[in-house]
C-alpha cells in the first residue's frame, strides 16, 4: 500500500467514526429533547419523577408498547398497519366476553386464534395479493370495528366474578415486584429485538422493506415475509388485549379506538422511518416511553387529557422536521 493510499484509508476511516458521532447525536436528538421535557415537567410537578409515578407511566405505556413492537416489524418490512386499533377492540371484547362463557383458558386460546386470523387476512391481501397496505389496513380498521359491534350487539361486556379468576394476573399481577404488563412488554421487545437484529428472518424483513425488488432478485420470498409481519403484529395485539381485558375486567366495544395513531406516534418519536428497511425495536421502546411521559406530565400539570393530542403530534412534526433538516445538511456536505 502506498503512503497516499494509507492516508486515504485512514482519512476514510476517520470519516466513518466522525460520521458515527454525528449520526449518534442526531439519532439521540429526540432523547435530549425528552430529557429536557422531563426537567420541565419535574419543575411543575413534584410527583413527576417519583418512583411510583414512573412505574405508573411505564405500566400505562406497556399496552401501546406491546402493539408498537409488532407494528414496528410491519413498518421495517415496508408496510403499515392501521388496523391494530380496532383489532385491539375485537380481541379485548372477545376475551372478556368468552371468559365467563367458556372459561379463561379457552377464551384466551380462542382470542389468539381469531386475532391471528385477522392478521392473516391482512397478510394475504397485502403480502400475496400485493394490495396497498395503507388502504387494506384502513379498510380493516372499519371492517373489524363493524364486526365487534355486530358481535357485541352494541353492548359493553364485562367479567362477572372479577376477584375469583386467575385471568386478573395479566393486567394486575406482579412478578418479582414488576407489573406483568411491563414484564410482557419487556419480554416481547427483547425477543423481537433479537429476532430483528440477530436472525436471518430479521435480515430478510429489513431487505424486503429496504428494496423489495432487490430482495426478490436475491431469492427472498418477499410475499411470505410481508405476510408474516402481519401475523406478528396480530400476535402482539392479542397480547395487548390480554393485558387490557384483564386490567379492566370488562370492555367497551370501541376500547381500542385511536390506538393505531398512538402506536404510530410512539414509533415515529422513536425514530423508525415509515419508509421501511430501517429502524429498531429499541427505538420504538424509547418512543413509546417518551409518549407516555408526555401524556403523564401534561396530566400532572393539570391540562385536560386532549391537550396531549396536540402536544404529541406537534412534537412529532418537529422531530420529523429536525431529522429532515439534518439530512439536508448532510446531503449538502457530503458528495452524493
Amino acid at each position, binding site marked *: 500500500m502506498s503512503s497516499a493510499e494509507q492516508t486515504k484509508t485512514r*482519512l476514510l476511516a476517520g470519516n466513518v467514526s466522525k460520521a458515527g458521532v454525528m449520526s449518534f447525536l442526531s439519532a439521540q436528538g429526540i432523547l435530549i429533547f425528552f430529557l429536557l421535557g422531563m426537567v420541565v415537567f419535574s419543575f411543575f410537578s413534584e410527583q413527576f419523577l417519583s418512583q411510583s409515578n414512573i412505574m405508573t407511566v411505564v405500566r400505562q405505556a406497556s399496552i401501546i408498547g406491546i402493539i408498537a413492537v409488532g407494528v414496528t416489524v410491519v413498518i421495517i418490512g415496508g408496510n403499515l398497519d392501521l388496523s391494530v386499533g380496532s383489532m385491539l377492540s375485537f380481541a379485548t371484547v372477545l376475551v372478556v366476553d368468552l371468559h365467563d362463557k367458556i372459561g379463561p383458558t379457552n377464551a384466551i386460546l380462542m382470542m389468539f386464534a381469531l386475532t391471528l386470523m385477522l392478521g392473516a387476512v391482512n397478510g394475504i391481501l397485502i403480502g400475496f395479493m400485493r394490495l396497498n397496505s395503507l388502504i387494506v389496513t384502513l379498510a380493516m380498521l372499519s371492517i373489524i370495528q363493524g364486526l365487534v359491534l355486530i358481535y357485541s350487539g352494541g353492548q359493553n361486556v364485562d367479567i362477572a366474578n372479577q376477584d375469583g379468576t386467575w385471568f386478573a394476573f395479566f393486567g394486575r399481577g406482579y412478578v418479582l415486584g414488576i407489573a406483568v404488563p411491563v414484564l410482557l412488554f419487556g419480554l416481547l421487545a427483547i425477543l423481537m429485538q433479537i429476532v430483528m437484529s440477530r436472525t*436471518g428472518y430479521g435480515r430478510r424483513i429489513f431487505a424486503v422493506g429496504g428494496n423489495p425488488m432487490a430482495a426478490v432478485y436475491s431469492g427472498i420470498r418477499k410475499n411470505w415475509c410481508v405476510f408474516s409481519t402481519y401475523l406478528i403484529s396480530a400476535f402482539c395485539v392479542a397480547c395487548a388485549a390480554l393485558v387490557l381485558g384483564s386490567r379492566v375486567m370488562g370492555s367497551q366495544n370501541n376500547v381500542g379506538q385511536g390506538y393505531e395513531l398512538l402506536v404510530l406516534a410512539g414509533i415515529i418519536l422513536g425514530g423508525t422511518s415509515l419508509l421501511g428497511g430501517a429502524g429498531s425495536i429499541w427505538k420504538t421502546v424509547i418512543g413509546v416511553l417518551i409518549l407516555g411521559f408526555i401524556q403523564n406530565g401534561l396530566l400532572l400539570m393539570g391540562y385536560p387529557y386532549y391537550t396531549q393530542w396536540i402536544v404529541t403530534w406537534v412534537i412529532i412534526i418537529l422531530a420529523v422536521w429536525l431529522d429532515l433538516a439534518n439530512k439536508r445538511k448532510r446531503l449538502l456536505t457530503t458528495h452524493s
Partner: protein
Amino acid sequence: MTPVHARTGQRQPIDADPVLKLEGITKRFPGVVALNKVDFDVRPGEVHALLGENGAGKSTLMKVLAGKHQANEGRIILGGEEMAFENPKHAKRAGVVLIHQEQSLVPEMTVAENIFLGSLPKKWGNRVDWRKLREDTNAILETLKCSFQHDDLVGSLSIAKKQMVEIGRALVFTPRVVVFDEPTASLTDHEKPVLYDVIHSLCEQGVGIVYISHRMDEIFHLSHRISVLRDGEYTGTVNTCETHEDEVTRMMIGRSLELDHASKPTDFGENMLELRNLTVKRIFEDVSFNVRKGEIVGMYGLVGAGRSEVAETIFGLRTPVAGEVVLDGEVVNFRSTHDAVAAGIALVPEDRKDQGLILGMNCRDNMTLASLSSVSSGGFMKGSAERSVYDKYHQAMKIKTPSWRQKVGNLSGGNQQKIVIGKWLHTHPKLLILDEPTRGIDVGSKAEIHALVKDLAKSGYAVLVISSEMPEVLGLSNRIIAMYDGRVTAEFDGDSVSEDALVQAITGMGTSAPAAATA
C-alpha cells in the same frame, strides 16, 4: 475481433481562448480530498472529454462547475469573468448546464412543460403563456431535430427521446458550456448518432462541450481534446488526434491494460442449461439454446429484444406459456426466485441499484443476502461467518471500501457490481447469469470483472452473459446467441464471428429465414 488499441481521433484541436477555465480547484469532503488542485478548460466549439475511473472525481468536478458543490479552493472563470456559483440555477443562468446521468424529468408532464419546468413563460397575472411556451418549445425541438411533439407526454417517450428533452432543457438559457455526463449509458447503438448530431450542432454554435464517458470509441469519435483525472488529481490533457487508447488508459489507471483474448475458457463439460422452445407471451418466442459447464455463452441484442426477459424466466420471475427449462439434466419449473436460487441459479441483474442491491444496507449484509442460511445456524446469524464471507470476496475482487459497515449506496458503480457478483458467488451456483455486468463501470473494474468471469468459467461454472456491448460479447464468449425482436436469430462461434454478421443478426437484417438455433 481485437478492438483496435491504437485507435486515435481525427479531430484537430480548436485554437481559441477558452470560454471556461477552472484553476486549481480543490474540494474536500469530511475526511476525503475529492479534488486536489485540478485545472480544466473548455474552448468554444470544442468537445473536451473528461476521463477517469469511477471515483476519480469527474462528477465532483462537474458538480463544482455547475454550482451543486462549492470548491474549497480555486477559481472558475467563465468568459473572462470570475464566477462563484451558489447553486445550479445560478450556473444555468450564467450559461453552464449539466445534463444529468439520471434523468430528472416528470413523466406525467408534456415535453414543453418539462423543458420549461421552473422557467415557464408567464403573461400578466402570473398565468402561463401557453402560446409562447409552445412556440419556444417548437424552436428548441427544431434545433434538436426531434421527431416528437411539444405536447407528447414525456412518460411515453423512449429513453433516447427523453434524453433529447433533457438536452432541450439546457437550451432554454443560451448555454455557453454544456456538460454531458455519461449521455449514452442507456442508449442503444442506433440511437447514439442522433445525440452525436446534437453535440456537433451545439459545437457549431460555439458552445463548449464537456463530455464524460467510459466509452473510448465515443470519446475518440467525438472529442478534440481529452483530460484525465486520477484519484482526484489532474493527470493531464492531450489532443485527441495525437494520442491513442493505450496512452489514455495509462493516464487513467497508471498502467497499461492488456486485453487478453486468448484466455477464454476452452474446456467444456456437459449441458448445464438447456432451453427448449421457451416462450413467454408477447415477450419472446421459441427460444432454444444451451450453456455447458465451463462455457461462457454471450447473448447479444438490442435493448428490448427480450434478452433480460429470457434471463428472468430462467430465474423464476416470469412464467413461460410453452417450452422447457432444463437445468443439469432435469426439467425445472420455478415458481419463485427462491426456488431458482435453491436449484443453483444466480442472476446478476441489469439494474444494480433497483434489482441488485439494498442501497441502505451495509456491504457485508448485501453480500450475504442470497445465502443467509450458509451464515446462520438455527436461524441465528453468525457474525464471524458473515465477516469471513465478506472478507473473502472483498479481497478476491479487490473491492474498495473503507469498511464492511459502509452503506453500498455510497460505493462507486464498479465496487457495487463486485458486491453483487460476490453475493452470487457465495451461493456456489451451477449457472451464473450476468445481465449487462459492466454497464456504467470504469475500465479498470471492467477488466477485472471480465477476467473474473473467465476464471469462473474455467473453474467449471456455466456462464451466460447478456450484453449490448460488442467488444464485451466478443471478448468473453465461446458462443454468441443473437436475439432480435423476441427471437433467437442466429448462433455464432465466439472466435470466428464477424462484426457484420452479428450486427445483421441483431437488427433483423436477413431474418426471412432465421438461422435455426442449434440445441
